[in-house]
C-alpha cells in the first residue's frame, strides 16, 4: 500500500476525528459526526471548499468601549500610534475568533495559515504596527492554498517582513543580510538536506542580500498616516551581478538598474531558490511535520517526502500548495494508525480545541463587541500563559516545539502541565463570563440529562449507568483508545471516589425524582465534573 495513495476506507469515528484534529484547531462533536462515513477524498475536499466561507471575513473592529471609534473597523482610520498595543490585540482576537469559529463548516484555512505564519514568521512585538500585522496575516490567509512561489515573492516585500527581518535597512554598500539568510535557511531552501549536508554557502547569503537591496517600508508607525506599504528605491539597490555558489549551479543574477530592478531580481532569486532540488523537499517535510508526524524517518523521506516534493515542483503543479495538501491529508500515511495521536497538542490546539469540542461559541464580532472582546481576551491570555503568543513568536524560527529536538514534547513540562490543568478547570468549574447568560463551561447536568430517555419516568425507564456516561464523555475525546484499567479507574476512582457504581443509579434517580432539590443536583454535577476533570488531565488528552 503506497503511502501517498488515497486512503480508501470510509471515515470512522476515529479517522474522522483524526483528520479534523489535524486540519483544524480541534473538532466540535457534531463536526466529527458529520464526517463519519465520508471518503477521505470527500472529507478533505470539504475542508478545502469550506475555506471560501471564511476567506473574506469583515475586518477587525475597535472593541475599546472608551474609544470614540468604538465598534468601527479601525484599520482604515488614520494610524494611531497610541493604540499600537490595544489594536494589535484586536487583530489577534480577530484571528482567534476565526480559529475558534463554529459555523458547522470546518475548514483547513486557519490551521494552514498558522503553519505559514510559523513558517514565514513575523513577530508583532518587533513590527509594532497593527496595520502591518493585519496585512501580513491577510497575505498568509489569502495565499495559504495558492502558489508557494507567489507567497515567497510577496512575503519578501511584505511591509511587516521588511521590518521584522531588516529588509528595510538592506542597502547597497552595507547590506543587511538578515532576511537573505532566513529566506534560504528557513523560508524556502532549508539549511541542510535530510542527510545533514549544507544546502548553500555563506557567500550565497551575502549575494542574496545584495539582490534584495533597495526595498523600503513606507509610513511604518507614521502617526495619522492613511496609507502604508513597501517600495523599491533604485538608488539603494546594488546594481552589480550577484554570483552564487555551486549549490545553485553557480547562477549569476544579473545586476540591474532602474525601478524594475528590485522586482526583477527578486523574482530571479526566488526562482533560483525554488530550482534548488532541496526546496520542495524542505517545504513538504515541514508540512508533514505539522500535519502528520514530526518524526521523518528514512522510510518517510523516501516514500512520502521525495514523491510529494516531486509532485509539488512538477511542471503540471508548479508549486501550487492546495494539490499537495489534498494528497497528503487524504493519503494512507496520514490515516495510518502509527500517526494517530503522534503529536502533542500545541497550546492553541489544546485551548481552542477545548472550546470547540465543548461548543463554547464565538460571539458575533459585528454585533456583540464586548462579548467578542471578552472571548478573544480569554483565549489570548490562556495562550500567553502557555507561552504561545499569537502573531508574536520569540524568534524567526517560530515556536520552539516546532523545531527543537523532541518537537512537541517541548510543550510539556511542570509549568505547562500545571497551566493546562488550570485552563481545563475553567470549563469544569465555570466562572469566566463572556456576556449575560454565557459563562465559559460545560453544563454537566444538562448533558447527562440529555442522555436519559424518559427522564421523569423513574419507575418505568432504567437509569443511565456510569458506563454510559463514560462512553458519552469519552466519545471523540481522545486520539488513542483508553483501556479497561483506565476506564475502571476513571469510573470507580475519579467519578465514584470508591463508591459502588450502583450508588450512582440511586443518586441519579433521586435527581430524576426531585430535580428541584439542590443536593440531588449537586452530586450529579460533582460526578460529572470529577470524571471529566480527570479525563482532561490525562496524558492521552494532550495528544492530537
Amino acid at each position: 500500500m503506497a503511502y501517498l495513495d488515497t486512503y480508501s476506507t470510509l471515515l470512522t469515528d476515529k479517522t474522522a476525528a483524526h483528520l479534523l484534529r489535524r486540519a483544524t484547531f480541534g473538532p466540535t462533536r457534531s463536526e466529527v459526526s458529520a464526517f463519519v462515513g465520508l471518503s477521505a477524498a470527500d472529507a478533505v475536499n470539504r475542508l478545502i471548499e469550506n475555506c471560501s466561507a471564511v476567506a473574506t471575513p469583515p475586518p477587525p473592529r475597535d472593541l475599546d468601549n472608551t474609544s470614540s471609534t468604538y465598534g468601527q473597523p479601525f484599520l482604515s482610520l488614520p494610524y494611531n500610534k497610541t493604540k499600537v498595543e490595544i489594536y494589535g490585540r484586536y487583530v489577534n482576537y480577530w484571528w482567534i475568533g476565526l480559529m475558534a469559529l463554529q459555523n458547522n463548516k470546518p475548514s483547513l484555512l486557519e490551521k494552514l495559515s498558522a503553519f505559514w505564519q510559523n513558517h514565514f514568521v513575523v513577530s508583532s512585538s518587533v513590527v509594532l504596527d497593527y496595520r502591518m500585522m493585519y496585512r501580513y496575516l491577510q497575505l498568509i490567509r489569502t495565499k495559504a492554498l495558492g502558489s508557494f512561489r507567489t507567497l515567497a515573492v510577496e512575503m519578501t516585500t511584505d511591509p511587516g517582513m521588511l521590518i521584522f527581518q531588516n529588509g528595510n535597512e538592506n542597502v547597497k554598500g552595507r547590506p543587511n543580510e538578515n532576511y537573505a539568510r532566513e529566506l534560504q535557511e528557513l523560508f524556502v531552501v532549508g539549511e541542510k538536506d535530510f542527510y545533514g549536508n549544507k544546502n548553500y554557502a555563506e557567500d550565497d547569503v551575502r549575494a542574496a542580500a545584495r539582490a534584495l537591496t533597495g526595498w523600503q517600508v513606507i509610513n511604518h508607525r507614521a502617526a495619522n498616516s492613511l496609507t502604508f506599504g513597501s517600495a523599491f528605491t533604485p538608488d539603494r539597490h546594488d546594481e552589480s551581478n550577484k554570483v552564487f555558489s555551486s549549490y545553485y549551479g553557480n547562477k549569476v543574477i544579473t545586476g540591474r538598474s532602474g525601478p524594475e530592478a528590485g522586482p526583477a531580481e527578486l523574482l530571479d532569486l526566488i526562482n533560483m531558490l525554488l530550482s534548488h532540488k532541496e526546496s520542495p523537499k524542505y517545504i513538504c517535510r515541514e508540512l508533514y511535520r505539522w500535519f502528520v508526524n514530526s518524526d521523518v524517518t528514512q522510510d518517510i523521506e523516501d516514500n512520502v517526502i521525495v514523491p510529494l516534493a516531486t509532485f509539488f515542483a512538477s511542471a503540471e503543479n508548479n508549486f501550487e500548495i492546495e494539490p499537495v495538501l489534498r494528497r497528503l491529508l487524504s493519503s494512507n500515511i496520514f490515516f495510518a494508525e502509527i500517526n494517530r495521536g503522534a503529536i502533542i497538542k500545541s497550546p492553541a490546539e489544546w485551548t481552542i480545541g477545548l472550546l470547540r469540542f465543548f461548543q463554547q461559541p464565538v460571539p458575533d464580532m459585528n454585533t456583540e463587541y464586548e462579548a467578542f472582546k471578552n472571548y478573544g481576551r480569554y483565549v489570548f491570555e490562556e495562550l500567553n500563559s502557555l507561552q504561545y503568543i499569537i502573531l508574536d513568536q520569540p524568534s524567526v524560527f517560530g515556536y520552539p516545539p516546532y523545531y527543537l529536538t523532541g518537537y512537541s514534547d517541548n510543550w510539556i513540562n511542570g509549568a505547562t502541565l500545571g497551566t493546562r490543568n488550570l485552563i481545563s478547570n475553567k470549563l469544569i468549574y465555570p466562572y469566566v463570563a463572556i456576556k449575560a447568560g454565557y459563562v465559559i463551561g460545560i453544563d454537566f447536568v444538562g448533558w447527562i440529562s440529555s442522555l436519559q430517555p424518559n427522564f421523569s419516568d423513574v419507575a418505568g425507564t432504567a437509569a443511565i449507568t456510569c458506563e454510559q456516561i463514560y462512553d458519552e464523555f469519552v466519545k471523540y475525546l481522545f486520539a488513542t483508545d483508553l483501556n479497561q484499567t483506565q476506564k475502571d479507574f476513571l469510573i470507580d476512582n475519579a467519578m465514584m471516589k470508591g463508591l459502588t457504581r450502583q450508588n450512582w443509579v440511586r443518586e441519579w434517580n433521586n435527581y430524576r425524582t426531585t430535580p428541584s432539590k439542590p443536593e440531588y443536583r449537586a452530586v450529579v454535577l460533582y460526578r460529572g465534573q470529577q470524571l471529566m476533570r480527570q479525563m482532561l488531565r490525562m496524558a492521552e488528552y494532550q495528544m492530537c
Partner: protein
Amino acid sequence: MNRRDFIAAATSTILPLTVNGLNLKTFTRDSPIVRSLMSTAAANEDKILVIIYLNGGNDGLNTVIPLDSYSQYYKLRTNIAIPENQILKLNGYPETGFHPVMTGMRDMFNEGKLGIIHSVSYPNPNFSHYRSSDIWMTGVDSNQFADTGWAGRYLDNRYPGFPTSYPNQTMKDPLALQIGSVSTTTLLGPQQPMNVTIQDPESFYKLVGQMEQLPSTDLPCCEAGRRIDFIRRQQILSVGYSAEIKAAADAGQNLATYPAAISGNTLAEQLKIIARLIHGGLQSKIYFAELRGFDTHALQVTSTNTAEGEHARLLRLLSEAITAFQSDLKLQGTENKVIGLTFSDFGRRVDSNASYGTDHGSSSPMFVFGTGLKRQMVGTNPNLTTDLDPMFINSRETNVNLKMQVDFRRIYSDILRDWFGTPGTTTNSLMFKNFQTTSLFSDVVFSTASGVWQDRSIWSSGRMPGPKDYVIINAGHVVSVNQNLVVRNIQVEAAGELLFTGNFTVTTSG
C-alpha cells in the same frame, strides 16, 4: 596533561630541571604549587552552576571593548562605536573596558568575582541562530549532531537511571531547574529533560501539587505511546518535586535588593527565584535562566547616542541582574558554592551594518562569575588587526569576524572537572573529547606548545602568565624567554625547556 595526572606525576617523581642558568625549586607534595593544584580537585558535592543564556547572539565587541585597539574599533564600527571616554575601566587590566551601563559587572570584576573569557567560539562557526545555539547547548563539533545537552549528559552520568526511581532519599530535589516555560536543550538527557521547568515555586505547587495520578497502564503503539509515556513521567516528576521546591522557596529568602519588578528585568526575576531556592537549601545542581533580545540587526544603538539603545538596555538588565544575584548570595553566605556563566548563540560581526546594528558573527566573550574563580581573564583582547578574519582590508563591504581564541567546550570541561569534580576521563567522554583546560579554576598555567613567552597561544590560559601564576612548562615544550619574568613560580617538566635568549631575571614569590 590534566590536573589529576599532573598531581600524580608531581608527587611520585623527582623532576629534573632544565633551566638555563637558573636555580629553580623542585616541587613536593607540600609545595604551594602542588597544594594549590590539589585544593581545587576535592569532591565538590554541594557545588551549583547557574547558566544564563543570552538569546539572539550578543555583540561582544560592544560589551567588552578592546581599549588597546580603540582606533581600529572605531574605524570598523563607527556608527555604533561606544565613545572612548565613556567606556568603563577595569582594575589591573587597562587594555580592556566594559560598556558604560555595566557598572555593576565592572564592580564585580574589580572585586575579583567576575571573569572574562575572550573570543569564545568553535571551529567552523555556523551563523544560524538555531544551529549555532544547538551547538552551544549540545557541545558538539559544528559538523556533528547530538540529541542530548552537555549539562544533561553530566547529570545523567552523576545520577544514573534518572528519571526512574527519582525523586529518592539521596536526591529529593530536581537535578536541575529552569525558570521559564519551554525546556532548554542544554539540560536534555538521553531519555528526557533532566530538569524541572517552573515559572515560580508557589504557582507551581498550587498547579501540580495535588495532581491525582492514574495508574500506569499499557501504552498505545508508536509515537503516541512514546509521547504519552513522556507526559506521564513529567507529571509524576512534577508532583514529586513540587513540595520540595515549595519548601525550599518557603525556607529561603532574598537578602539583596533586586531591580524592581516594574523595570521589566526578566532575568533578575529569574535569578531572584534561583537565589531564594539556593538559600532555602534546594539541592539542584544546575539552574538555567534566559534573557532574550540580543539579535540586534538594527538600532542596537540610537542614531544620536551610541551608548544608548537596545543593546545598552539589554546589557543594563544583564549587569543589574547578575550584580544583585551575587550580592544576594554573599548576604546569604552561599557565595562560595555557586558559579555562573553566560553564553549566547554566537557573536556578531566586527563591522557594523548601515542600520546601526550588527549581523551574525563568530567569536564573542563569555562571562563567568562567582568567588570560586581563580582567574579573571582567559585569552586576550582581540587584536582588531591580526585577530580579524579575514584580515581587515579597507573595503566597506568586507564581512569581518573575530578569530576564535577559546573553544567554549574548554570552559564546559573546566566546569565539569574542576567545579563539579568530575574525573577527567568522565569529563572527556561527556564532552566527546579531551579539551585543554583554560586554568579558569586554577593558579597554574600550563604550556600547551613551544614558542616565545609572550605568545598567548602557548598557554592554557590563553595569555602570558603573570605575577599570580604558577607556571608549568610541559614535557616537549621549549619556551623562549626574551624578557624578565615575574611569576609566582615556575616548574619545568622533564624534557621541557625554558630557553633564555639573553640575561633575564625570573622573580618568584612563592
